Every structure is written in structure tokens, then in C-alpha cells.
């Protein structure tokens, strides 16, 4: 430490007010020194010195010359203190710093008095603060991931360093921005981590829980800062925060090494210390296993933020390029010109480039599911602690990419399912599991995989499994299933997704909350995905979410009515029929019904419905497309079905609020615009009598 102090005074001699480089160097040296100063009044004094320097660097000091004098005195005090013996723990000058002339208003309370520190600066630079928020979030996310890695392998020094760096960086930035509470918490956590870094305390149990709690608290604080920045609303101070700081401080203080700065340099200490015993890892109740832990460390990819509109425009243009390219390469004129020559080679090269560009364009919006999975791992860990059910949480396929919009919407659904699996799926006690011939700790697997052009996300637990009889009984009680009706197991499992069907008590005889799987189903379907469940009694349950790769593309059936082509989303089509005249009947000469084998569905004629005058009345030749949405069915008469294809959804560039039955546009392969039929809207128009009257009278006129 003496050495570092010497370097600090060297830097001080070299630096001068108004020389940011020199001051920065000084600050770095001080930071370096701070690592070695034990928590206590001296450390607070040194932190205060740091703030003085930061003010000088940022040009915020009211009287630079006097601040500079204060810096000088403080460094002298540090040297004095070091000379007197670091263990003395006295802070001769810290009080003087508080009252240093011209700086009393800036130095504020020492960071240790967290409760008294104002949470937010009175004035701030929105840009700086915004950047800080983004950065803090990234650091905290990284810390979360590394903590999980650390928990499963306490000897993972690399992970520990990353966590430490995260807190250290946040602390530095927070103090620059006058974010008192964040700085204080980061400071205390850093002390704790520092002890772990030296090997003084094992990073397990209480210590790691505290760091996890601290990460969470920091996230909350970051959110508070964001709110403050946007609305200037100051959230009330959280008493839990103070309690957390006190707890961390107690943990640090209870460690014998925490009070006295180690005299020898840290590296040798670290080497001398025994690595934490594996048994400590076992005491942690949840273990998260990444499929490829090494990859986490390597895959630090650079990324830039791009305006989403620009991205959309780029993808639009690529789509057009594909159309133009196919028009060129397939034109007859070209074939004559290019018979075997250079031109044909160039065209085929152009085609390849276009194809690659198209793939690249599609991948621009895709992000790996890794961050989402990491969040879930964290959630599973916390839950398993809360429920005291030890589990092993395994993820795989984190590298699989999916549309960012889907990832954002998926999180809630996954939380529901994982909570369900832990709460109701995994057996109540290790004994129960052992009796069932399973290992004592439960296992939940979260997997992502590609299947048939869509993404499948599975949550598999090895718990009790669903009890079909209990579900059926409940279904009958609730009046959802008629008594005596025979349902297949799969049909019974589907019941749990119905609204109002509380699975909790039935399936697991637990007095847990009824988790709304119907909500999960709705949100998955809103993403044009599907959810299914497989379960074997006593062996476990698997929830399988099948999601489209991207929201921007749908599978659609292209149909023709009159001269226009329309697209019906394939997901909502149940069947295509060529109706006999006898299958149709009219109501009051206007509305038509189509009788299918077992039911009567309303029949729409696109020509009439959409007021397309030029469309003929295809009575015999037409095809009825039977569509379904939310349990309602209808048939749409089309002149012709042209085929099925993947379609990029486009906005029509105007408000479609008054337009009935159209939900958007698509660019067809020939470059023309087609319209997407809004199945939900069409169906709604027939089930609501008021709209029916208006609609049947005036077509779709506005």
C-alpha cells in the first residue's frame, strides 16, 4: 500500500488544476489505493478525496484552487495515516474534508451514511445519465450471469472479477453523477466482493445471497434513476436498501480480515488461500448449468444500436432487391442475351449475393435467447431458495436466435411456466423424490431448438407430472366437461389452459396460487405461436412453446377475389372446401350460411363484404376458405386459391381504423401489394348484431 500511496503522491505532483489527463491519472491511482484501504473512516476520507478530484475533472468545483488545496491536505493526511500504521483506523482529516472551504456543498455526507445521502442529483446531464443507465444495466446483467456461474463453481475467479468490476465501474460512474444511494450500495458490495477476491471469505451462502440481493437492489435503483430522469419524480427511499447495506457491512465486519488491510499484496494472499471447498457449493440450493460455460466468456461481441426504422427500411429494400433480381434473372430477354456468356454467370452471382443479403436482412432483428434464458436461470434460483426445493436448472440452445419482439413478449410466459414447474411440478421434499426413485434435487430444463421452420422452447421438469384424473374431475366440477364424456389424455391436458381453470389445487394438491396458464396461452397465441403440454405421471411435465422465427413474416394463403389478391394467415385456416350449391343457404336474401358436416358457419363473399364491384359472383367455381379464431368459425368465398407462401407484413402507410376486414398489406412476389384479411375482425362483425346490421346493409362503406 505504501508503494501505491507513493505513486499517488507522484501523480499529485505531476498533475495540476485544469489538466484533465493528470487529474484522471491521479484518480486512477487513488482508485488503486482504495482497494487496499480497509473500510472505515480512512476509506471514507479517501472516497471524499475521489469526489473532490471528480469535481475538478468535470469542472464542477466552485473554487478549483481551494479544492486543489483540500486535495493536497487530504493526500498528506493519507500519507500520515499510512506512516502511523494502517491498522490504527483513524481518519485524521476526514472531518476536515467535509468542511473543506468551498466544497462543503459538494462533498456532502460520506458514502457510509447511506440513508442521509440524497438519492438523486438536483441537476444532471440527461445524456450522461441515460448512458449511465444503459451501462449500469449491462453491467448488472453481466454480474447476474457471472454470479450464477460463481454459485455453481465458487472457485471461478474470472467470474468473481467480472462481478467485482461491474460494481466497481458502477460505483465510479454513480459517484461522478452524484447518485448517492447507488454509490453507497456499490461501495459496500465492492468491499464484500473484495474480501472474496482475496479469498478471505468464500463466495457462497450468505455472501453470494447478499451480492444477488445487491444486484437486484441496484437494478431497482437504476429503474428509479430512469424514472427520475424522465419525470423528475423522486421515489421514496427504500428502507430495505438501508437494511441491505447494513447487512453487507456486518458481513464484511464480521470477517477478521475485513478490519485490517492485508499488509502483503493481494496476489500472494490469493495464491496462499485454499480454494473454497466444493462442499460449500453443494450447500447452494440451486445449480445452474450452462450448456457451454466457456463460450460465455469468449463471446463478447461488439454491437451497435441502430434506429429500428432504418432497419425496417433496409429490410424493405432487400425485399425489393429480391423481387427485382428474380424479375431480371427470369426474364426471357435475358435468356436470349445471356446464352452461356459472361452475363449469365454474373446474373447467377447476383442471385447468390441477393439470397445471402436476404438471409442477412432477416437475421438483423434476431437476437439469441441467451439473455432471456439467463434471466430465467436467475428466477429459478431465487424461487428454489424461496421454496427450499433444491433444483438443477439446465439450459441449452441459448445461441438460437429469435425475433427481438418475440423475446420481449416471451419472458412473462416463461416465468409463469417455470414458476409452475418449481412450485407445483417438483415434489415437495427430497424424500418424496428419493422414494420415487429420483435424485434428491429436482431438475428443470429450458431448451430452445429449431423445428420445422419455427422455434421451439421447452420447459421440462422431472417432477410429479400432471394427474389426468384430477384434471378431468375438476373439469367436470367446473362444468367445462360433461360427465361421461370421454377425453383423450391430450384433450384433458388441454383443459389446464382454459380460463378460470385453477390447476394448482387439483394437479398437485398444493394450496398454491392458481397460475393462469390461460394467460400464457393467450400471449403465446398473440405471437402466432402454439403451446402444448406433455406429461407422464410421476416422471415430469414438458411445456412446449412453438413460436415463429419472426413476427414480421407470416405463412399465408393467397386467394383471389375479383382482380385483387388477399392473404389469409394460414394459422387461422382450418380447411378449404368446394361447396355444393346445396350446402349454402341464405338468410333474408342477404347473409349466407355454409353447412359443413357438423355445423353451420356464416359465409362471406369477399366481393360483397369488401364492396368490390368488379368481382363476379362465384357460385360454383369458388372455394370456401374456412377460418377460425378464438373458437368462432366462418367461411370466406374466394374465386381461386393461388397458393401458400411466407409473407412479409407491411403497414399500408395510413390509418386502417375505419376499414373493416383488412389488417395490413403484403408485397406479393410480383411486386404488387396484396391485402391481409383480418379474420378476427371479419368474425367479430358477424357475432355482434349491431355491426352485422350495419355491415350487411352498407357493405363495408364508410
Amino acid at each position, binding site marked *: 500500500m505504501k508503494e501505491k500511496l507513493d505513486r499517488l503522491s507522484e501523480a499529485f505532483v505531476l498533475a495540476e488544476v485544469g489538466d484533465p489527463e493528470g487529474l484522471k491519472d491521479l484518480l486512477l491511482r487513488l482508485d488503486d489505493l482504495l482497494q487496499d484501504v480497509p473500510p472505515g473512516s480512512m476509506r471514507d476520507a479517501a472516497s471524499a478525496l475521489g469526489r473532490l478530484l471528480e469535481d475538478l475533472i468535470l469542472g464542477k468545483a466552485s473554487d478549483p484552487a481551494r479544492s486543489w488545496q483540500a486535495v493536497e491536505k487530504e493526500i498528506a493526511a493519507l500519507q500520515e495515516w499510512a506512516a502511523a500504521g494502517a491498522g490504527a483506523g483513524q481518519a485524521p482529516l476526514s472531518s476536515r474534508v467535509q468542511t473543506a472551504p468551498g466544497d462543503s456543498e459538494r462533498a456532502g455526507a460520506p458514502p457510509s451514511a447511506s440513508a442521509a445521502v440524497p438519492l438523486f442529483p438536483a441537476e444532471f446531464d440527461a445524456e450522461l445519465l441515460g448512458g449511465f443507465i444503459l451501462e449500469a444495466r449491462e453491467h448488472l446483467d453481466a454480474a447476474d450471469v457471472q454470479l450464477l456461474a460463481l454459485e455453481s463453481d465458487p472457485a471461478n475467479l474470472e467470474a468473481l472479477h467480472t462481478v467485482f468490476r461491474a460494481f466497481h465501474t458502477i460505483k465510479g460512474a454513480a459517484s461522478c453523477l452524484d447518485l448517492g444511494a447507488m454509490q453507497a450500495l456499490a461501495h459496500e458490495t465492492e468491499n464484500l466482493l473484495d474480501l472474496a477476491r482475496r479469498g478471505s471469505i468464500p463466495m457462497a451462502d450468505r455472501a453470494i445471497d447478499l451480492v444477488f440481493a445487491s444486484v437486484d437492489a441496484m437494478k431497482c435503483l437504476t429503474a428509479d434513476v430512469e424514472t427520475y430522469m424522465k419525470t423528475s419524480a423522486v421515489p421514496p427511499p427504500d428502507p430495505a436498501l438501508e437494511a441491505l447495506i447494513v447487512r453487507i457491512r456486518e458481513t464484511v465486519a464480521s470477517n477478521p480480515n475485513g478490519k485490517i488491510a492485508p499488509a502483503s499484496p493481494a496476489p500472494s494472499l490469493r495464491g496462499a488461500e485454499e480454494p473454497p471447498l466444493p462442499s460449500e457449493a453443494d450447500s447452494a440450493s440451486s445449480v445452474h448449468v450452462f450448456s457451454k460455460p466457456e463460450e460465455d466468456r469468449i463471446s463478447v461481441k461488439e454491437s451497435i444500436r441502430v434506429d429500428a426504422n432504418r432497419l425496417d427500411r433496409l429490410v424493405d429494400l432487400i425485399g425489393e432487391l429480391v423481387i427485382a433480381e428474380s424479375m431480371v434473372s427470369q426474364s426471357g430477354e435475358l435468356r436470349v442475351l445471356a446464352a452461356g456468356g459472361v452475363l449469365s454467370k454474373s446474373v447467377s452471382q447476383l442471385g447468390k449475393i441477393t439470397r445471402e443479403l436476404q438471409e442477412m436482412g432477416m437475421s438483423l432483428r434476431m437476437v439469441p435467447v441467451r439473455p432471456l434464458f439467463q434471466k430465467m436461470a436467475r428466477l429459478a434460483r431465487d424461487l428454489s431458495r424461496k421454496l427450499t426445493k433444491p433444483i438443477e436448472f439446465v439450459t441449452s440452445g441459448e445461441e438460437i436466435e429469435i425475433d427481438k419482439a418475440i423475446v420481449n413478449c416471451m419472458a412473462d410466459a416463461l416465468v409463469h411456466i417455470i414458476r409452475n414447474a418449481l412450485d407445483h411440478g417438483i415434489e415437495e421434499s427430497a424424500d418424496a423424490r428419493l422414494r420415487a426413485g429420483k435424485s434428491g434435487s429436482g431438475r428443470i430444463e429450458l431448451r430452445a431448438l429449431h423445428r420445422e421452420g419455427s422455434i421451439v422452447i421447452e420447459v421440462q421438469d422431472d417432477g410429479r407430472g400432471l394427474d389426468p384424473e384430477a384434471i378431468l374431475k375438476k373439469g367436470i366440477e367446473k362444468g367445462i366437461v360433461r360427465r361421461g364424456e370421454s377425453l383423450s389424455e391430450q384433450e384433458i391436458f388441454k383443459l389446464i389452459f382454459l380460463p378460470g381453470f385453477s390447476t394448482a389445487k387439483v394437479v398437485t394438491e398444493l394450496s398454491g396460487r392458481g397460475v393462469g396458464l390461460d394467460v400464457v396461452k393467450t400471449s403465446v397465441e398473440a405471437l402466432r405461436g402454439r403451446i402444448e403440454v406433455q406429461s407422464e405421471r410421476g416422471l415430469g411435465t414438458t411445456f412446449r412453446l412453438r413460436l415463429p422465427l419472426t413476427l414480421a413474416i407470416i405463412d399465408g394463403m393467397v386467394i383471389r377475389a375479383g382482380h385483387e389478391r388477399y392473404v389469409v394467415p394460414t394459422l387461422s385456416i382450418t380447411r378449404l372446401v368446394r361447396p355444393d350449391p346445396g350446402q349454402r343457404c341464405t338468410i333474408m336474401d342477404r347473409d349466407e350460411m355454409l353447412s359443413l358436416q357438423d355445423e353451420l358457419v356464416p359465409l362471406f363473399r369477399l366481393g360483397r363484404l369488401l364492396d*368490390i364491384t368488379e368481382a363476379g359472383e362465384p357460385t360454383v367455381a369458388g372455394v370456401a376458405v374456412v377460418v377460425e379464431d378464438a373458437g368462432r368459425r366462418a367461411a370466406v368465398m374466394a374465386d381461386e386459391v393461388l397458393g401458400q407462401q411466407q409473407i412479409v407484413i407491411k403497414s*399500408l402507410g395510413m390509418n386502417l381504423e375505419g376499414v373493416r376486414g383488412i389488417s395490413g398489406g403484403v408485397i406479393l412476389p410480383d411486386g404488387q401489394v396484396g391485402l391481409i384479411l383480418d379474420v378476427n375482425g371479419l368474425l367479430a362483425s358477424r357475432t355482434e348484431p349491431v355491426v352485422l346490421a350495419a355491415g350487411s346493409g352498407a357493405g363495408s362503406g*364508410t
Partner: protein
Amino acid sequence: MNENATKDTGARPGASPGKYLTFGLGDEVYGLEILKVQEIIGLMRVTRVPGLPDVIRGVLNLRGKVIPVIDLRRKFSMEARVDTERTCIVVVRVLREGQGVTVGLIVDDVREVLAITENQLEGVPKFTSGAETAFLLGMAKLSPRVVMLLDVDQILSSTELWSLPSTLGQPRG
């Protein structure tokens, strides 16, 4: 449109000197501020969107972006005419609530780009016949003819492209 426009030209502050793209609707010649014109494209097949007012002929694909197309003849309540080879679409881009929006205008034929000077500008005369003078910024006397200078923003905002009357307006997903 341009708040700094010369006031001596008429009742409304309107047209300012500068370059205008002129086009024809029947025998009449109209002008659009060149800065608002993005491009001119030949008439391509326009997809009709059911349920919209007749003024909006439909939508078309402009290099991957779907834009609405307004039939100016209909907009000005002029007699409809069969499209010819010279019929084309003037694509204009205007700012609306801070966002650039692109709309196509169908015109009979595109003429030329004219530089119009201060002393050629005239105010909009008042008619009693109900002609849609609200869409005019001003007139330009160019012997031997007169060019009517259009207020694009006024045309677009009165077309209810973005705020259709919500009598049927049940927003749906």
C-alpha cells in the same frame, strides 16, 4: 405551408417564389413545390383497399414501402377520366407530426419544372362556385397560362388518410 410567404399576394399567406413541378389535370395546370416532390413514377397497378373513400385509389409498392395513392381528379371533384399512357404518379413526401410520410398523387400528365418569381405570384381569387380553393396556395401568371400552386399539406390532411372518421371505428388488432 411557408409562413414567410409574401403577404401581398392575396388573402392567405401562401405561395413563395421558387421552383415548382407542374402537371396537368385536363386543361388545367397545377404546380407543386419541388422540395416536397420525392419522385415521379409511371402509373402502376394500384391495389384498391376496400372501405376507403374513393379519393384514395389504393396502395402501391414503392420499392418495398407501401404508400397510399390519392386520385387528384377525384379529390378536386373533377370528372373521372380513363388513365392514359401519360397518367403518372407524383410521389410527395411531407412532414406530419414530425414524421415524414410519403403519398402518391395521380395526375394526368407531368409538364416541367418552373422557376416562379415573386412578381409572377398572385393570391387566390374567391369563387362562389364552390371550387376547392382551400387546396391552393396561390396562382402564378405565366403568359400565356396560369398555374395553380397547390398546398400539398392541406390536400393530405383533408383526405383523412390518418384520421378516418371513426363511425365504424372499432380498433382491432
